[in-house]
């Protein structure tokens, strides 16, 4: 933009020189003045442009509910918070576990982890882990981050009324011993393969929050300074700290002078909340925002359209992610109970065509619930290719061999009709439902499409297991996420267990239960990978859910922005925000 303006103005100046013959010297002086003014204006303009590029405005579609790090898991909160705080451990852009607030991951190999035989839960092994806090880690008010903060965080996490969402993490930690101001030993009663991952142990500032907690422990979650005084500099120790918060509208962060790491480039980052994606796009085009976050922005189909129209003005990056779109199967449905019917449905779906036509091939077709980018993914897991003939043969074999008006029937004359429910208002899912209905019709299956508001689907139909056939929705996971809550028989929601668990299909397989139990405690990577392989093969054979594809995050950046590393998982790209910069920053 600045180059175009400069060119246009230079042309006008040259025209003025050519136009006048009489009074040439006066015109020359006038022109010189004009030229000088122009240069000054352009210099100021260039200065403005440079100043603007020290500001970055990001558009996201959701406002975070609470800003407390350990209460209420939410993508919007995580996105902002990764700029102002850092977890002890996290997954990086390559999906590897790394240290952020700690100096080094404790392992058995480096002596940071020590096995405690027989001291764990139910007589198992426990583990003692030594973490060292980054030596220069300091809260934004100059107070060092110390083990006192760690002990306080542990106190809050253990309190039954503190409202911490991942309370299991704190229950599993049996004690924390302080070695010095920057070193502590954490003992966990569970020795699992991810024993040294404490991603959800987000350290709290004891010097500010302890008085609030001690004053009224039961109501701490409603009195925390993270919500009452969010711009308090002492609440941040990341590269940025919050300086302005407008409820429901925007959050502003500016550099934290006490940040220990690489100096952040941007002097101010504004995170603006625009829930409507059409308005989000319009704001990007009009300059109201500079970029759209991939974590909470446009869907792939919207982004493809945007890229076609504006691909020359913005960089559109598709990052394959861990959001798993699939169809949960109600396994006690008499039709779907037969695995041959489920396999026929898989062969009757042309998932690659679906992905190509609806998403321009930007999504990854799934073999199971394990993402191909995850290191435990097994490429030999059987793929259900599009094969209507095979699907028909399987349905014949399952007793659905008579065809009347294009719909298969069984010996009793019952039609092969399957309800397919999904979320209302989600245009992409509604399109998928229609495509599947058309494809399955080709093999004689009648699909009854139903949509429900997300609240009804997720709060009633799924959790109370009231859906009748197939349910189309997505799971969000993390790298090497053991699917215990979705596949273990103990996780089937029933009235008896208060509808807890997320095994909505009602899948009960002793083999799967054993695999899940073993994977969790297998520390050897190769042996664990073999178990994961078995799990994926079993999943593909039993089909407790019909895999569709893994969603991609779509990041839309200005051409001048560089250094952003999309992650594809729930630990957002902002966890390396200090590396973001303008391309002309040198």
């Amino acid at each position, binding site marked *: 933009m600045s180059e175009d303006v400069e060119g246009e103005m230079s042309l006008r100046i040259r025209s003025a020189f050519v136009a006048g013959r009489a009074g040439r010297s006066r015109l020359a002086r006038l022109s010189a003045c004009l030229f000088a003014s122009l240069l000054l204006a352009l210099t100021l303009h260039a200065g403005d442009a440079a100043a603007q590029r020290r500001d970055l405005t990001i558009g996201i579609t959701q406002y975070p509910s609470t800003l407390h790090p350990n209460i209420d898991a939410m993508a919007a909160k995580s996105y902002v918070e990764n700029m102002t705080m850092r977890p002890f451990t996290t997954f990086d852009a390559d999906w590897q576990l790394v240290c952020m607030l700690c100096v080094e991951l404790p392992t058995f190999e480096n002596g940071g982890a020590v096995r405690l035989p027989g001291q764990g839960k139910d007589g198992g092994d426990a583990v003692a882990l030594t973490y060292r806090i980054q030596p220069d880690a300091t809260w934004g008010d100059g107070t060092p981050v110390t083990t006192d903060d760690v002990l306080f965080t542990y106190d809050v996490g253990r309190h039954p009324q503190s409202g911490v969402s991942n309370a299991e993490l704190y229950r599993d930690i049996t004690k924390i011993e302080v070695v010095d101001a920057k070193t502590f030993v954490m003992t966990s009663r569970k020795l699992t393969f991810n024993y040294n991952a404490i991603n959800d142990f987000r350290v709290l500032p004891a010097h500010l929050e302890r008085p609030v907690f001690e004053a009224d422990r039961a109501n701490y979650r409603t009195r925390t300074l993270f919500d009452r005084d969010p711009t308090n500099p002492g609440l941040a120790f990341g590269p940025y700290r919050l300086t302005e918060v407008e409820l429901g509208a925007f959050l502003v962060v500016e550099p934290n002078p006490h940040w220990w790491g690489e100096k952040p480039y941007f002097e101010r980052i504004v995170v603006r909340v625009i829930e409507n994606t059409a308005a989000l796009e*319009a704001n990007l085009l009009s300059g109201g925002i500079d970029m759209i976050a991939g974590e909470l922005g446009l869907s792939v189909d919207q982004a493809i359209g945007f890229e076609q129209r504006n691909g020359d003005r913005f960089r559109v990056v598709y990052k394959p992610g861990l959001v798993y779109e699939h169809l949960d199967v109600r396994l006690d449905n008499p039709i779907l109970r037969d695995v041959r019917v489920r396999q026929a449905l898989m062969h009757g779906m042309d998932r690659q065509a679906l992905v190509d036509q609806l998403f321009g091939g930007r999504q990854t077709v799934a073999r199971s619930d394990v993402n191909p980018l995850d290191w435990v993914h097994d490429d030999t897991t059987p793929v259900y290719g599009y094969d209507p003939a095979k699907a028909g043969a399987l349905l014949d074999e399952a007793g659905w061999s008579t065809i009347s008006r294009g719909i298969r029937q069984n010996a009793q004359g019952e039609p092969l009709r399957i309800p397919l429910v999904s979320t209302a208002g989600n245009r992409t899912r509604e399109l998928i439902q229609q495509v599947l209905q058309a494809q399955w019709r080709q093999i004689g299956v009648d699909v009854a499409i139903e949509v429900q508001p997300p*609240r009804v689907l997720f709060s009633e139909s799924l959790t109370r297991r009231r859906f009748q056939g197939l349910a189309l929705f997505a799971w969000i996971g993390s790298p090497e996420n053991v699917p215990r809550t979705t596949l273990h028989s103990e996780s089937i929601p029933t009235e008896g267990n208060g509808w807890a668990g997320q095994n909505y299909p009602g899948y009960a397989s002793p083999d799967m239960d054993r695999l899940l139990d073993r994977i969790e405690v297998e520390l050897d990577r190769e042996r664990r990978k073999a178990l994961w392989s078995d799990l994926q093969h079993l999943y593909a054979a039993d089909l407790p859910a019909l895999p569709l594809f893994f969603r991609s995050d779509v990041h839309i950046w200005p051409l001048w922005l560089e250094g952003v590393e999309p992650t594809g998982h729930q630990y957002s790209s902002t966890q390396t925000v200090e590396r973001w910069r303008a391309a002309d920053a040198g």
Partner: protein
Amino acid sequence: MLTHVTRSIVEAAVVLLVMSFVVYGLIGLMPGDPVDLMVTADPSITSADVERLRAIYGVDGPLLQRYGLWLGAALQGDLGLSRTYSQPVLPVLLDHLGPTLLLMGASLLLAVAIALPLGILAALAPRSPLDGLLNLLAFASISVPSFWLSLVLIVLFSVQLGWLPAGGVATVGDGGLGDRMVHLVLPVAALTVVTLGPLIRHTRAAMIEALRQDYVRTAQAKGASRARIVLGHALGNAMLPIATILALNVGGLVSGALAVETIFAYRGMGKLIYDSIMANDFNLALVGLLLATLLTLLANVAADVVYAWLDPRIAYG
């Protein structure tokens, strides 16, 4: 008059109490609770955590019991906390009320200022080409979806022409009066357009009815000027039904315009109430809806007073 106003206020209080129960019950009957939403967001949550969180968020008891507890606290001035914003409900509501009143008030005033003359003009020459044109405009205004109009305005004035901001209440870091006014232009324009139609139609209908009355013929017979007949005699009487429509619109002033606020990312009450219902934020949704109800009731009381002022023949027993 004083008795009537007092009685209206008491009636309003009773309606408010009934409404609080109805709204609380309706929100409570909706599927899911705040903890269900947390479960959806966090697959690693355990059943023990779910029970613990239900107790913490006070959604583990029967609905009637929870309503009783809420009402008791509300009568003592404690309207509760917003679960979504982790803050007391009232400051959150008041924070959103100001921008909404500004947005809705400005658009209503503008709509009235445009609709009244247009409605009168249409009534003066019914079935004329001018009346036809104004009717066409009115129906277009009634028919156009506000979200579509909002997007069209953004695309035209923000994206194509670059004259006006595409959304928000103010520029982050600015927030001066001029900046706020500039941010108001497009949402006010969108709301004014969609409010105009019904007001033109109501004004036209009321004026046509008034101009048919005997007193208008009498005034004409007495040689009163056209302007005096229209503005002095007919309009005064036509204002009675128009005042009713305007009083009912006051409720809308508080509850906001959801579509326009959403498209323009305008921090207002409509979006706040909608979001709080969707997020099962019981307290916020309840108090927000009750606030809108209260203001509507008060506006109706005010409308009664205006009736008496406009037409002294109206007497209250």
